[in-house]
């Protein structure tokens, strides 16, 4: 499978899952979670463009699937007692997929009505909204609600939204990281880098500096085992 996957074509993670199931004629009622999870992740990885806003919901589903997969694969000792006996951890997913499928069918029905493929009635075109005067109606509570929602989005506290004041500088941070590494045998654990960091902006600067160093191949980041520590090492000049 080396074609480009277009995630935008799917309206959401459920849509993609349904597609995967249907493509292989798998039963919704008996989803092979391990298989489907792998395929789902593969799909995400093949997606060329990562539109974060769009992919967010897909990632949420990915973590959900991974969690489900691990619950099914690992024989759990404790949880079995908590959950009702015989309950399938997949049940919720199955129900969601069935629901979603139902609404998709209805959407198709609506579309064919819209297109006039099904017997339908027609109403008068009302583009020229009559000759009458129109009377606007509104209510003040609506106004208030509407304005409230803007206030929520606005930066209301000053500290939270300080303008950049040149207090953090990425190239400075890059030097700092290299210096740190030099002091400690040329190796550091990622988390240690962030010790003593006080502001979010500073943490961000550190992180960007690190990425930049990796890009310049001045340092490398290594994770020796899954979920293990990430080590940062000075690259030896070749």
């Amino acid at each position, binding site marked *: 499978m080396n074609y480009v996957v277009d995630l935008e074509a799917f*309206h*959401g*993670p*459920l*849509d993609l899952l349904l597609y995967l199931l249907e493509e292989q004629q798998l039963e919704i009622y008996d989803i092979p979670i391990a298989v489907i999870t792998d395929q789902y992740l593969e799909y995400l990885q093949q997606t060329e463009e990562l539109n974060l806003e769009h992919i*967010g*919901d897909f990632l949420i*589903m990915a973590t959900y699937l991974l969690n489900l997969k691990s619950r099914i694969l690992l024989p759990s000792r404790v949880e079995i007692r908590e959950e009702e006996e015989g309950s399938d951890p997949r049940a919720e997913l199955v129900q*969601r997929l069935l*629901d*979603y499928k*139902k*609404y*998709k*069918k*209805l*959407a*198709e*029905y*609506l*579309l064919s*009505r*819209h*297109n*006039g493929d*099904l*017997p*339908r*009635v*027609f*109403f*008068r*075109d*009302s*583009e020229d909204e*009559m000759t009458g005067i129109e009377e606007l109606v509104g209510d003040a509570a609506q106004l208030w609600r509407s304005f409230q929602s803007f206030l929520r989005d606005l930066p209301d506290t000053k500290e939270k939204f300080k303008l950049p004041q040149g207090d953090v500088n990425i190239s400075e941070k890059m030097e700092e990281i290299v210096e740190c590494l030099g002091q400690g045998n040329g190796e550091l654990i990622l988390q240690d880098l962030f010790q003593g960091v006080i502001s979010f902006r500073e943490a961000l600067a550190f992180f960007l500096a690190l990425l930049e160093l990796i890009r310049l191949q001045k340092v490398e980041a290594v994770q020796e085992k899954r979920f293990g520590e990430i080590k940062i090492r000075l690259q030896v000049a070749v």
Partner: protein
Amino acid sequence: MLMRDQIKAAVEAVLFVRASRVGKDELVEILDIPLLELKEILQEMILEYNNNVRGGLQIIELDGGYMLCTRPAYSDILSRMEKPLRKRLSAAALDTLAIVAYRQPITRAEIEQIRGVKSDRIVNTLMEKGLIEEVGHKAVLGKPVLYATTEEFLKVFGLTGLKELPDLEES
């Protein structure tokens, strides 16, 4: 005072002019007849329209009012007509509309739960197109807005009422 036939003709004219639903109260006021008589006359008219082979129209009762529309038998012919402005709906819009249509009144969070994706933008679009509207607030924490489909929704999909939607459980 109008004769019964004249009242019928007047009702037809009124329903024709107003391209949307005309409330019973308004009809009572315009025609200056008692509500009971109005209802009686409209029941008669609905039957007459249905039995008239030469007629292409029917009267439907909707949300405490009446509305004139075509008979479904002519949908083929009518879909050949050039539409002045067909609202094109995206698949995402259709999905969302289907959910609202069946679950109304429904909150945005409930829609998102079913779709599995953020839906604020699509809900706003449907509101702007007049296909759904706010109908109140759910009595739970945060008092989220409840949405329902509009008369415009019925018009766009050629439905004479929500009851015409296919049964969910059947499929």
